[in-house]
Structure formats: structure tokens, C-alpha cells
């Protein structure tokens, strides 16, 4: 029982990341009809927003203290981040919270990037075949990850969660199961965060006029345009929103997985599988499949299961995708008429 709960928990944070990326993929696909292979790169860019934000606020002031000497006889350098010099203790707190705060930095950056990308590149590919869309965004993904590699190097850059959530939560005690179920706090935070974002996106689409127009546009774009609504502009904003969701997902994921330049592609392949399993064009399906596959993956990496079927943890997601596609051609919740030609 303990092991099962632990595995479900383990799957939730990864599932949260899959669900957030898949949600963005589905949004762009449902609105613009574009298959975006660069979406994983947006996730990676978000993660590097967190890295750059951290670098930015930990810029240090160097003071030479002549009274103290180092072992080499030179004056001791005292390094203090500017932010601590300016704000004192509040600055220390800000430094500690750099990862959650980096979201505030990631949102505008990703929004601008998403809108520019849509207007500058994707716009010209609405009427091209899907193969062309895949290829051009694939090229863009390579370009983005190489640029990141050029500036940040090839090694993963660890980021740290705030001290207050650095340890592990003793979930077993809450549920009355004893001490054996412990779980890192930050992963719980990530799960809660992804749940809030997903809920926010759904609420935005469901309860605002803007969202209603967008949903109508997903159903029948031509009809909405005929009603005199500039649906293209709204879709551009939705693309920016998808980029923001991917970016936030990436920024918050950094304490769990130190970001490196190719993390985007690793996640993209899985997220596409998630989208396909969930059903192309179904937002609910993408979220459900994201969590489902995340949990399945963590179950498959249990030693008990690995000893029965070796290597199952490596391939479970792909295996599930193959089985689902062959039995339910539209995925779990796919709509009729989406991507069937």
C-alpha cells in the first residue's frame, strides 16, 4: 500500500509537467492547426529563464578587505549579491525564492517570444502541409537548443528550491500509514502548481468571453470570422499563452531536474505521445493522459515490476501509446474530425 501511494505521488509531478506541455501543444493544435515540434524547446527556454533570473539576482558586489589576507597574501575578496546590499534581509529571502519568483520573469519573456514566433514564423505555415510544419518547427527547436548551449554550456545547471520546501514531507503520517511514505516538498508544490495552472487555463477558456470566442473558433473558425471577430489575433494570443504555460512548467521544474539544453526534446517526444494518447485536439484528454502516463511510468520503474519485465520503465509510455492508438484510433478523448485526413 505504502509503495503504491509513493509511486502514484512520484508520477504526479512528472505527469504534471507532461500535462502542462501537452496542454500547450493541444491548444496550439486546436486553435492554429499547427503541429509545433518546438514546444519542448519552449519548455527548455522557460527552465533557462529560471537559470538566467537566478544569475541576474545573484550578481555580486566584490569588495576588497585589506585587513584580512588570504592564504596567498592578497586582500580577501568579500562577495555579496547586490540584492542583499540593497535590500538587506529581504534580499536574502528574494535570493532564496529565486525559482518561484523566476515565473514572474518567465511570463513576459515567454509571452513575447510566443507571439513573435507565431507572427514571424508559424503564421506563414497555416496552409502548408503538416509535414512542413513539423520540419520547420523541428529546425527551430534545434536552433533554440544550440543557442542555449552556446550561452549556458552543455552541462546541467542545478537550481534550488526555497529552503522552506527543501526537505521532504512525511505524507505517511498525514494519512496514518506510518513513516515510510516520505516525499520531497518541492514535488508536491510542483503538482499543486500544475493543477492550479491547468485549472486556470480551463477556467479562462470556459468562463471568459475571450475563452468562449476561442472555443468557438476551435469548432468552426470560418463561421467565427464571418461574425466579424478577428479570430487570428485571438489565436496568436493563445499561442503566446501556450508558450507561457510551457515556460512556467519549465521554470518550476528546474529544482527537480537540473536544466540542460536538450531537456526540451526529451520532454517533447513524451508530450507528443501524451497528446496522441489523450486524443488530438482534446484539452481534457491531454491533461488526463499526462497524469496517467506519468503515474504509469513511475509504477513501471518499481523494482518489483522491473524484475518481472526488465526494461519496462524505459518503454512503458511508448508501449501504452501503441496499444491505445491501435485500439482507440482517436486516443482517449479525441474529437471526431480532428487530424483524420
Amino acid at each position, binding site marked *: 500500500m505504502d509503495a503504491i501511494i509513493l509511486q502514484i505521488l512520484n508520477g504526479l509531478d512528472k505527469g504534471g509537467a507532461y500535462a502542462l506541455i501537452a496542454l500547450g501543444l493541444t491548444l496550439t493544435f486546436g486553435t492554429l492547426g499547427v503541429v509545433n515540434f518546438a514546444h519542448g524547446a519552449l519548455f527548455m527556454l522557460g527552465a533557462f529563464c529560471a537559470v538566467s533570473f537566478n544569475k541576474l539576482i545573484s550578481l555580486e558586489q566584490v569588495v576588497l578587505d585589506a585587513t584580512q589576507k588570504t592564504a596567498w597574501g592578497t586582500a580577501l575578496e568579500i562577495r555579496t549579491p547586490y540584492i542583499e546590499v540593497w535590500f538587506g534581509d529581504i534580499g536574502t529571502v528574494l535570493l532564496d525564492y529565486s525559482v518561484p519568483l523566476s515565473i514572474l520573469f518567465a511570463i513576459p519573456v515567454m509571452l513575447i517570444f510566443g507571439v513573435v514566433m507565431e507572427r514571424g514564423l508559424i503564421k506563414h505555415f497555416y496552409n502548408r502541409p503538416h509535414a512542413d510544419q513539423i520540419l520547420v518547427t523541428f529546425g527551430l527547436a534545434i536552433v533554440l537548443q*544550440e543557442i542555449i548551449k552556446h550561452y549556458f554550456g552543455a552541462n546541467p545547471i542545478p537550481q534550488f528550491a526555497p529552503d522552506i520546501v527543501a526537505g521532504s514531507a512525511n505524507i505517511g503520517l498525514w494519512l496514518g500509514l506510518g513513516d515510510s511514505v516520505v516525499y520531497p516538498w518541492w514535488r508536491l508544490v510542483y503538482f499543486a502548481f500544475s493543477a492550479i495552472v491547468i485549472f486556470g487555463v480551463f477556467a479562462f477558456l470556459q468562463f471568459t468571453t475571450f475563452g468562449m470566442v476561442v472555443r468557438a473558433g476551435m469548432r468552426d473558425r470560418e463561421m467565427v470570422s464571418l461574425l466579424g471577430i478577428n479570430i487570428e489575433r485571438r489565436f496568436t494570443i493563445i499561442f503566446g499563452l501556450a508558450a507561457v504555460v510551457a515556460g512556467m512548467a519549465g521554470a518550476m521544474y528546474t529544482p527537480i531536474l537540473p536544466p540542460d539544453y536538450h531537456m526540451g526534446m526529451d520532454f517533447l517526444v513524451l508530450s507528443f505521445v501524451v497528446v496522441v494518447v489523450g486524443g488530438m485536439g482534446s484539452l481534457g484528454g491531454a491533461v488526463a493522459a499526462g497524469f496517467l502516463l506519468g503515474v504509469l511510468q513511475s509504477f513501471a520503474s518499481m523494482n518489483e515490476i522491473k524484475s518481472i519485465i526488465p526494461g519496462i520503465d524505459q518503454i512503458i509510455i511508448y508501449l501504452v501509446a501503441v496499444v491505445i492508438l491501435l485500439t482507440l484510433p482517436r486516443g482517449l478523448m479525441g474529437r471526431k474530425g480532428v487530424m483524420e485526413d
Partner: protein
Amino acid sequence: MFGNSSRADWIMLIAFSAFVLAAPILLKPFGAAYPDLLQKFAIYGIFAIGFNILFGLTGYLSFGHAAFLGVGSYASVWMFKLFTMNVIPAVLFSIVVAGLFAYIIGFVSLRRSGIYFSILTLAFAQMSYNLAYSVLTPITNGETGLQVRQLVPADRAADYVFILRDEDLRWVDQAFGVVEEGIPITNLFGMKMSGYPGFYFCAVLLILGFFIAMRIARSNFGMVLKAIKSNQNRLSYTGVNTRPYLLAAFVISGMYAGLAGALLAVTDPLAGAERMQWTASGEVVLMTILGGAGTLLGPVLGAGIIKYFENIFSSINDTVLENVFSFLPTTLQEISIAVTSMFVGEGWHLTLGLMFMIIVIFLPGGLMQGLNHLIGLFKRKISTKSVSADSSG
């Protein structure tokens, strides 16, 4: 491209063969005339030709073709390890294994089309890649890669199962009493397959592969494949069951990839899982579209160009750049070096990605389409000239 008559085809084939066989001389001015690179041209040419049979003719975009390349390499190295260093059995075995593998993957993936097909093939390739790194290490030797090693000493031949990764058996070679010194080199009935002989072996297979691809493109089978690309629904309505045709195309292109993988192992008997990664699959897609998907010469041209630039760009380092920009004032020189160094050496992939985008955006038909446009313009000019000459005279 040059019409559909078979005479034009023969001329093209002969010209192609002549070019390939004379490549060591013709490519000398470009600094590309050394065996290692020429072998790569030929091998990736074969890979791209095979990929083009699927993507160019049917329009099905497979994102997992590198898996077949990897499987072909492993199959070859196992033939080298177990039976003989002669390349013929290894090549044949690789083609068969890759074909079978493609049959299984194609059987499942081809149930869906469009983007679903792309993702299914990508999923299968990633699955193979992950398995090669983890569970299948007894067969693939994991991260180290599978290599040809020295023979098992006779006194320990009884417990070979446990050391097969590090020591080889080569039953056939041993039965014929072939004497080995150090790490053996692949051979074709005694002719060593490194350097120029290795290139000519690949070149002959490239020409053969080109010929077969040409025959396929001109055959009825090829016509059906092209019909699938232009309108699969209509073809189904006329009563043609398209799936067997697609599966055949998929298996054939998988066999080409297996052959390319085998040749990679022939020229350098080492197989690693990184050959199966999605970047490798993406590379062959790029080669094909760069040259022109659906054309015969395009994929080979694309493969050659990409391998050539990869070789040149990745060998440029900062000292070379300093020499190139030495005529500029210091500040300008530093700026130009900083900018260009992003695109060369380690940053070669950035250039590749940009090339990818530029080609897809501006020249979706690839270089061959561009060339044909030029030829078409030229011809039209000539014909309008002759028409005006006729009317005036």
C-alpha cells in the same frame, strides 16, 4: 525530372555512376577527396535514397528511420564477431534483419497516417534507443558500443557465452584457418575494406541502390505510391488497398537503412546506440528535403552536401577564424569571430538547424526543384527566342 522515357533514365544512371566512381578525382578541388568522407557520402546517400522511397513517393514522414540504421549496424557487427570478417554475409544479414524490423514497426505504425504515423515511428525509434542503452546491453554493449575484438583463446572457448562481448569467435574464419594479427579488419574475400577499396564497395552499392530506386519510381508499384501521396482517399475509393503498398515501401526503405547501417559497420566495425537517436532520424529527413523529396538525385545530393558541410564546419576552430578575419581591425575582428564561432565547430548543429528552417521556408521542394526551375526558365527563354525568330523570319 528529365521526362519519363527510359533512355533518359539510362543516361542519368550512367552519368550518376560515372560521377560516383570518379568522385575521388572530381571532389579533389573541394578538399573532400579522402576515403573516410567519401565513404560517408556514399553511405548516407544510400540511407537518404531509401528514406526517399517512403517519404518522397508516399508522403509518409517517418521520424524513426535511424532505428533501422542502428539495427543494421548491430546485425553486421554480430556477423563479424560470430562468423567471419567477410563483409558479404554481414551486409546481407543486416538487410534482412532491418527488413524484418521494419516489417514489424511498419505493420503497427501504418495503421495511422499523417502526424500520428510520424509520432508512432518516433516512439518506436526512441523505444529501440532506450532499450539498446538499458536492457539489451548483452546484445548492444550499452554506452561503450559493440566492437570487433580479438579471437577467444582456444583453451577458454568452452565458456564463451560470458565473454562474447570482449572476445570474438568467428567460426567460419577459424574453420578456414584465417590468421589474425591484432584487431581484425573487415574484408571482401581478402581485400581490406578500409580506405579507397572500402569507398568503392560503398559506391557500387550506392549505384545499385540508385538503380533499384529508379526502377521502383518508374514501375507500377511506384505509381501507386505516388498516387498515395497525391490522394490516398481517392485511391481507396477506386478499390485499391493501399496498406500492402505502403508496408512494402516502408520495408524497402528500412532495408536501405539497414544496408547503410551495415556499411557504417563495414568501414568502421563499431556500433553504438547513438546512431538510433532522434537527431539521426532528423538528419536523414533534412538530407532528403534539402536535396528534394520525391526526386531521384536529390537525396544523394542532400546527403553529400550535409556531410560535406558537417565535415568542414565542425573542423573550423577559433584559430582558423582568426586567420580568416585577420585583415579586419581588432574590434571588428573580435566581433566577427564571436559571431561566426557560434556557427562552426561545436556549433555546427546551429547551422544545420538554420539550414533546415531556411530550406523548408523558402525552398520546400529542395535544391532539385530550384535547379529544375532554373532549367525551366532557361528553356523557356530559348523557346521564346526561337518562336520570335520564326515569326520574324
